Structures are given as structure tokens and as C-alpha cells.
């Protein structure tokens, strides 16, 4: 029997980016808020300190900051005709496991989505006609435009201290920035990071070919920075340990640096760690939730936390799973196309790129950061004419050095043995002299890619695991083929001594190797309850006091990494709650 606790105004389920942003905004508006976090608390000073934070084995390979699949994982199959089996180790994607969430170990790439990404289906229909969209491609528009979200993108930029260079300032195109981006109301809060030698070589070659390279926007402060909350971030040290690890310099933005110090001092806020929410308490007739049930993972004791409002702010899979376990939202059926919960699961096309070897060039690959790179958007989104190409979407490129950590980073020319004396010679010879153009592609929704509940496997609380049915489709392979050719052209123009065959795969999606923690969809946003789980304010159609945050609300995934819009949407939803919902609780649309 669960112990019933005293009611609060709002409960956050998960204390990563969106939970901490929402808790901050709601407590500022006077609400009492509890943040329930399954994992432990962390502070950079204690958990991300030198020297132990520079431990490649612990963080990159033993996944210290990553969710434990023994608690909760998912099952996976490439197609509906197969039996899904559990993902027994984390691999392809790495959700977080503590206060701060995946933002503790993210790489920091901080993008906005293109105006045309916000209007994905209608933009394509307007430009090319509806017939170019394959019958099984279930893309749809976002529930708000880029221009509507821009002030919130801007606010999140200023929370994080993003470093970069604007390419479109209030409609004026600025060479050297990303000329394809939507209009910004302000320049980036910080100038770009220093560029590595490889990035400068890429920039030169790309420009000579007529492309438009720009510094990759990054949530690492290039200089000491005081954010909109009055908290100070340090300057990036180019340590090469950003992704999968914490930042000892407090330069990489995250809830622990950018918000939590204020929430810890906020009397209206209570942080409750090791508190695993098992389901929401749903009053279907009243179309509202009355609170959450959670388990104290130290004791196994169960508690009921009544709340006037619930914010789902877990990772993508946590949000989807809680809706399934609470009976909120009609599960999606790929055969009939009916239902919405679990629909339009998308990912990102990764593991692509071109590796180049330069005799005589010294790269010191261990000095850098994901933002010490030049990016390219010319063949991304709908920045290029797709007429007659037979696919939609595209890829973004980046070239720089961000990680010379030698367990994982050991580039050798193709054809080199993987071990033995020859491998040693090649590894020692090329470690300092290789560079890579990374290619990440968009992933548009397909009716056969979805999430539901697994019939066999359970999590540690005894709840069914989510079941992921997902594979690449023809559109994805065509995006890969077309864009990797462009990357290879730039690579050749960089004049390397040798170049490896461009990496891409035509086979099935593989859940084993790390690709990206950029899973999206499953609780998508939209204009009507038949085609979406949440409305334009991320309010659940089926429970007006339930708000679902994060990338699970994205109807499809552009090539960009999702954190920028995830933060912007949290601010957008928070403002709608404060200025609209609290005055008149009920459906906002």
C-alpha cells in the first residue's frame, strides 16, 4: 500500500534539462514543485573533478553516467515479423542516470531546427507537391512555427551560453555564419570556440568548392559567461572529454551548472532522488492526472505523490513508457495507422563519415571539443533542391577534433589489420595525422517504425518493457548516399595523402554500436488529438494537467541534434502554463 504524501502544485518526473527548466519557471511563478529523479544527485565539484574525470574507460566504455539497463531497458527488432529481444547493454544511445540527465555527458552541440523543419510536411508539399512524399512516410508539421519558438530558442541560448556565429540576424544573412538558419533575434551569447587545424582545412576546401562552412554551435562557453540566471560558466579547456563525460571546467552547459544551484536554494522546490515513478494516477473521466506513484529505490517503499499538475520530463523512452503504463493515449497500430502513442519514433543517421590521412600534418587529436569544428549545412534539410533526387531530408557535416581518447580513437587506413605488428605500426604512424568529416543525417518518420509494449520482458519494477520496432528505409539510404558523396568531394579537396572509403551502411539498423542519443517521437505534438499525443503547448490531449517535455514530442527528426529545441520547448510550455493554464486550468487548445 503506497504511503500518501502531501499534495504539491506540480511534480517533475525526471530532473534533466526539461525538469529543471520547468521547475525553475514554475517556482518563480509561485508554485510548490517536487522534482522526482530516479538516479542520484550530482554536483560538478564532487563528481566531475580532476583527475578522475579524465578516465576514458570509466566514462566512455563502462558508461558511468548512463542509465542502467538492469533497471529499465527496451526490447528491439528491425521489423514486425521478428521477435523483439532486450537491449541487454546500452550501446546505440545513452540516456542519463542522475540529476542533470543526459546533459551531464552530452557533447554540447546546440542547434536550432530550420524554419522548414518546423513545417516539415507543408513545406515539402508547397515546394514539390504532395506526390514526392512516399505513402509510408508519416511526417507532419510541428505544432508551432520557427518564428513562434524563436524567443524561446533565444532564451535557452542565453541559459547555456552557446558559442557560435550567427548567419541570419533578424533576416540579414551574415557570411561566415550558417546562412541557412532561421532569423535570430540576437547574436550567439559567446563567440565561436577556437578551431582545430583540421577544421580550418575543411573550411578552406569547402569554401573553394562554393559551400558555406561555419563554426559548429556548441554549449561550451568559449569564455567565462554569466547566464540569464546569474550563474557563471567557465571557459572551455579543449580537453577532448566532452561527450560521455562531465565537464570539470563548468564550461559545458547542463542543468547542474545552469539551473540547479538556484533550485537547491529555492524554498518552494524539493528534490527527491532515487525516486522512480512507476505510473501516473489518471482520472480518465475527468481527463486529468491526480499525481504519481513512485518507488524509493533505496528501500523499495512505494509512495503516492498527489499533484495539481504533472510534467513528464524523463528521457524520450521514460516519457513514452509512463504514458503506456498509465493508460493515457491510444497506442499506435502500424497496420491500421490508428492511434498515436508510440507513433513516429525517429532517430538520426550516424556512423557515416570520411576519414583522411595527411602525412606531414600534425593534428594533436586530443586537443579539441565538438565545437572546435567547422560545420556545413548546404545539403541539410531542404537547403538544397530535392527535385528529381528521389529522397527528402539531408545531412549536416562537421570536421574538427573532439576526442583523441585512445581506447576509442585509433584511425588507420582501410586495409590495415586490426591487431599485430602491422596494426601497431599503422596506429603509431597515423594517430596524429588523421582527420574526419562526420556526417549526420535526418530520419523522417515511417509508418512501420514505432514503439509499443513488449509482451514478454519486464523491468525491475515488473512493468513490461517498451518494444522498439525500427529500421532504416529507402529514403534514409538515399540521404546517406547523396550526402556522403558531397562529404567525400570536400575530403578530396582537402588534399589528403590517402582517404578511406566513405563510411555508410545499407544494412539493417544495428542497436549495438554507439550512434547518437537523439531518439525522438512516440508522444508527438500536433494540431489534433487524432494525429498527436500533445498539443502545441505540449499539453496532453487526454489529460489537461499533464505536460510532456522533450524530443518524444518531435514528429520527425532533422539531421540536427535535438537539445536546442528541447530546451526552447520547455520554456515555451512553461510560459503557456504560467500565463494561460494557471489562470484557467483546462485544455489550452
Amino acid at each position, binding site marked *: 500500500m503506497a504511503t500518501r504524501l502531501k499534495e504539491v502544485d506540480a511534480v517533475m518526473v525526471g530532473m534533466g534539462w526539461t525538469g529543471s527548466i520547468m521547475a525553475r519557471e514554475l517556482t518563480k511563478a509561485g508554485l510548490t514543485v517536487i522534482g522526482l529523479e530516479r538516479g542520484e544527485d550530482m554536483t560538478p565539484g564532487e563528481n566531475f573533478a580532476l*583527475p578522475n574525470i579524465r578516465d576514458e574507460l570509466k566514462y566512455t566504455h563502462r*558508461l558511468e553516467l548512463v542509465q542502467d539497463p538492469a533497471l529499465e531497458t527496451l526490447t*528491439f527488432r528491425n521489423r514486425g515479423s521478428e521477435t523483439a*529481444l532486450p537491449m541487454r547493454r546500452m550501446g546505440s544511445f545513452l540516456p542519463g542516470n542522475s540529476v542533470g540527465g543526459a546533459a551531464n555527458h552530452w557533447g554540447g552541440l546546440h542547434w536550432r531546427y530550420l524554419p522548414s523543419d518546423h513545417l516539415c510536411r507543408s513545406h515539402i508539399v508547397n515546394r514539390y507537391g504532395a506526390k514526392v512524399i512516399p505513402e509510408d512516410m508519416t511526417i507532419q508539421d510541428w505544432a508551432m512555427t520557427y518564428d513562434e519558438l524563436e524567443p524561446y530558442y533565444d532564451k535557452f541560448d542565453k541559459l547555456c551560453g552557446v558559442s557560435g556565429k550567427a548567419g541570419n540576424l533578424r533576416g540579414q544573412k551574415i557570411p561566415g555564419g550558417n546562412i541557412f538558419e532561421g532569423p535570430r533575434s540576437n547574436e550567439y551569447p559567446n563567440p565561436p570556440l577556437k578551431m582545430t*587545424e583540421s577544421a580550418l582545412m575543411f573550411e578552406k576546401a569547402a569554401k573553394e568548392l562554393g559551400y558555406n562552412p561555419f563554426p559548429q554551435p556548441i554549449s561550451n562557453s568559449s569564455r567565462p559567461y554569466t547566464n540569464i540566471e546569474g550563474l557563471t560558466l567557465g571557459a572551455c579547456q579543449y580537453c577532448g572529454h566532452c561527450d560521455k563525460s562531465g565537464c570539470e571546467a563548468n564550461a559545458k552547459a547542463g542543468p547542474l551548472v545552469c539551473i540547479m544551484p538556484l533550485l537547491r536554494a529555492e524554498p518552494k522546490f524539493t528534490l527527491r532522488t532515487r525516486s522512480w515513478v512507476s505510473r501516473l494516477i489518471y482520472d480518465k473521466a475527468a481527463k486529468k492526472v491526480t499525481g504519481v506513484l513512485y518507488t524509493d529505490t533505496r528501500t523499495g517503499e512505494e509512495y503516492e505523490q498527489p499533484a495539481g499538475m504533472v510534467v513528464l520530463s524523463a528521457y524520450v523512452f521514460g516519457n513514452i513508457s509512463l504514458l503506456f503504463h498509465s493508460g493515457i493515449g491510444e497506442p499506435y497500430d502500424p497496420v491500421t495507422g490508428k492511434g498515436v502513442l508510440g507513433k513516429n519514433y525517429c532517430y538520426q543517421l550516424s556512423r557515416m563519415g570520411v576519414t583522411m590521412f595527411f602525412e606531414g600534418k*600534425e593534428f594533436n587529436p586530443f586537443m579539441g571539443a565538438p565545437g572546435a569544428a567547422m560545420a556545413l549545412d548546404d545539403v541539410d534539410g531542404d537547403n538544397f533542391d530535392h527535385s528529381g533526387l528521389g529522397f527528402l531530408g539531408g545531412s549536416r557535416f562537421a570536421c574538427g577534433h573532439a576526442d583523441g581518447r585512445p*581506447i576509442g580513437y585509433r584511425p588507420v587506413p582501410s586495409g590495415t589489420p586490426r591487431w599485430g*605488428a602491422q596494426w*601497431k605500426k599503422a596506429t603509431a604512424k597515423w594517430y596524429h595525422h588523421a582527420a574526419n568529416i562526420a556526417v549526420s543525417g535526418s530520419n523522417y518518420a515511417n509508418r512501420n517504425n514505432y514503439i509499443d509494449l513488449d509482451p514478454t520482458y519486464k523491468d525491475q519494477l515488473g512493468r513490461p518493457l517498451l518494444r522498439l520496432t525500427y529500421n532504416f528505409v529507402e529514403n534514409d539510404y538515399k540521404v546517406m548516399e547523396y550526402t556522403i558523396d558531397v562529404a567525400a568531394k570536400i575530403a578530396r579537396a582537402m588534399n589528403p595523402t590517402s582517404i578511406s572509403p566513405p563510411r555508410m551502411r545499407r544494412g539493417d539498423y544495428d542497436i*549495438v554500436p554507439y550512434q547518437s542519443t537523439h531518439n525522438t517521437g512516440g508522444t508527438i505534438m500536433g494540431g489534433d488529438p487524432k494525429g498527436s499525443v500533445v498539443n502545441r503547448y505540449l499539453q496532453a490531449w487526454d489529460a489537461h494537467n499533464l505536460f510532456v517535455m522533450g524530443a518524444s514530442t518531435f514528429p520527425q527528426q532533422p539531421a540536427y541534434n535535438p537539445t536546442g529545441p528541447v530546451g526552447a520547448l520547455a520554456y515555451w510550455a512553461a510560459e503557456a502554463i504560467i500565463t494561460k493554464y494557471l489562470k484557467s486550468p483546462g485544455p489550452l487548445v
Partner: protein
Amino acid sequence: MANDEIPRRHFLVGAGAAAAALTPTAVPAPAEAQQKPAAPAAASGPEGYLTLTAPEAAFFSAAADTFIPADELSPSATDCGVVTFVDRQLAGAWGGGAKMYRQGPFAKGTPTQGYQLPLTPREFFAAGIVATNAWARKTYGKDFDRLTPKERETALKELESGKAALADFNGKQFFEALLTITMEGFFADPIYGGNRNKAGWRMVGYPGLPAVYSTLLDDYRNKRYVVEPQSIADFS
């Protein structure tokens, strides 16, 4: 180098049943003993194992030294502490199956569904060594660690390509795990027992810690940054 081998051999011989059949001539001649190493091994030989049996330690040593033989670039994997690293990894939480989903039922699955065995890493390596040695005895008449360096190379290539037909065990999957843990032992921070004297880092020119490069990035643009590598222990 050769001196470092002596305590290990004594340990093997003294280890009872597994070593009882060994005669002095049957003890493997380590590949590294046949070549002049680049630098003396930093630390002394094995300081005892937490979990590895003597035959397992011999197997790991033979495999790791085939992957990473001694030459002018580095001492052998064993002399760099890779077997000690493997032992500590398998004896610890990771070896015991930490951060794995281990509930059944267990089914084979497709390659894209990933690892589906009920075994922890400790159990997986134990089973893999037994299966590989059985295959080696059938194919070469000897356990893997008693093959000549040339035979070991051939045997590992057979495992890598999937040509080796292990009884009821996936040899290619075992090979991948073996190569991965060897490379981890060679390149991980020395605090874990491998990468002794930062030999792996020296081989590629990785400086280790503290990795604070905000001014050095420009100072060493297109110029090699060479320093004495430092590890976690150097700052602890």
C-alpha cells in the same frame, strides 16, 4: 623482459592440476622474448590474480601478446599489464554483469539485436577460453597458449573471420570481446593495472592528463605536442 617471465612460469608450474602436464619444453616461449624490446617494462611481473585461473591467465597472455607483440614501439601486452587489467576487470562489478539486463528468456536473436547470452563478462570469457582451447586441441593438438607464435596468429585469424568452428560457442563474438578488452588494457589509464609506464599512450603520443589545452591548441597548431604523459595516479 625475459626475467619478468620467470615468476609467471613458476606460478603456472606451481598452480597444480592445470600445470601438472606442463614440461619445461611445453611452456610457451613468449613472443616478446624473441625480440629486443623498446624499453624495459616499468613494473615487475604479475602480482597475483583476483579471479583468473592459471590456464586463463596463460590464455589471455598468449592472446594479448599476439595482438600486441613486443617491438620497438612498445613492450608486449603482458608486460604492459594487460592480463592484470583483464583480471581486475573480470573480478570487478563489470565482470560480474553490472549494467546489463540479465532477465530471461534468452534467445539467439539477430546480430543487430546485440548480446543475448545469459553469461556475465566473467562467465563469457571463461566459457570462451574453454571452447577456444578445445578447438585448438582438436585443430593443433595443444591448448592455445602452447601454440607457437605463428600458430597463435593463424588461430586468432580463424576466430576473427568466423572460420574456427567452436563447439556451441560463437568464436567470432569471443574474438571481438578478447580484442576489445586487450585494447582497453593497453590504452586505459594505468590506474586499472594495464598500460604500464603509459606504454600504450607513448606508442601513439597521447599525453593523458591534465588535458587543459585552451592556450596550447594555438601554440601547437600543426606542431606536435610532445610531453611526458601523465595519468590519474600522477595527480592523486
